[in-house]
């Protein structure tokens, strides 16, 4: 194999791959009172406790798991009977009580922040995200336009949005377009 076939970093071929985040080169983007940026989730794994094993999973990890639509520390409710552990070490032994799947790099994670963040999302997400209904730490599985979405309120004017990595470009396009259209009306 010639040097030209190898992965290059600068002028030299290297063995490590160059990491590329899902929305690399597309963000940050700011418009009006809102800013869209990419988040680095780091290590992420989905945990689906086997039937009747939620207690055992909680015990093994030494922490309680959230109710539907809530987050507890690094663990986020993710789907029916499924949780996402973000930036957590999952001991191999947990495999006895739950199906565990590495989700690192599988999701595009964005942050939408600013006074008009709720108004931007109101154009794309079919659930009520007002502060009175969707408080800090609340999360939901729903849609962003026609895409699957997991959304968490991370602050008074901040949301974390997760969608499939393969849809990162469309995700950024949809949100930035909604930001533009909202700003144009003000």
């Amino acid at each position, binding site marked *: 194999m010639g040097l030209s076939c190898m992965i290059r970093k600068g002028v030299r071929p290297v063995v490590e791959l160059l990491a590329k985040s899902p929305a690399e080169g597309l963000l940050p983007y700011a418009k009006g009172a809102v800013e869209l940026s990419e988040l680095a989730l780091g290590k992420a794994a989905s945990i689906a406790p086997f039937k009747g094993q939620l207690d055992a999973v909680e015990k093994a990890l030494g922490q309680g798991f959230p109710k*539907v*639509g809530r987050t507890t520390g690094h663990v986020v409710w993710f*789907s*029916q009977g499924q949780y996402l552990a973000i930036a957590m070490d999952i001991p191999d032994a947990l495999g006895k009580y739950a199906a565990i799947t590495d989700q690192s790099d599988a999701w595009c994670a964005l942050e939408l922040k600013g006074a008009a963040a709720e108004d931007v999302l109101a154009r794309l997400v*079919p*659930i009520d995200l007002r502060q009175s209904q969707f408080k800090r730490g609340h999360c*939901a*599985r*729903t*849609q962003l336009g026609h895409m*699957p*979405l997991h959304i968490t309120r991370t602050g008074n004017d901040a949301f974390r949005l997760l969608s499939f990595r393969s849809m990162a470009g469309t995700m950024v396009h949809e949100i930035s377009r909604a930001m533009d259209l909202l700003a144009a009306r003000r």
Partner: protein
Amino acid sequence: MRLICPVCGERDRREFYYMGDAVALQRPEPDAGAAEWDDYVHLRENPAGVTRDLWQHEAGCAAWIVVRRNTVTHEVLESVLATDLKGASA
């Protein structure tokens, strides 16, 4: 139309995938006979009124649910997790 997901609560219809009559939960035994299988596979009622259908909260928590609703008034009467029903009736 809005449907109630027993896991997530009330959601817009666009989040759900429609499968059809909840008869799929009452699969006949393999030796039930041709008539019963024909009925199960092909024959459906098409009532103007209360129906009982299978939906999936596809763009939500992914749960399969059985929804009773009225096709005339669009009233949604009941919604139950298919896993709960299956355990109870199978």
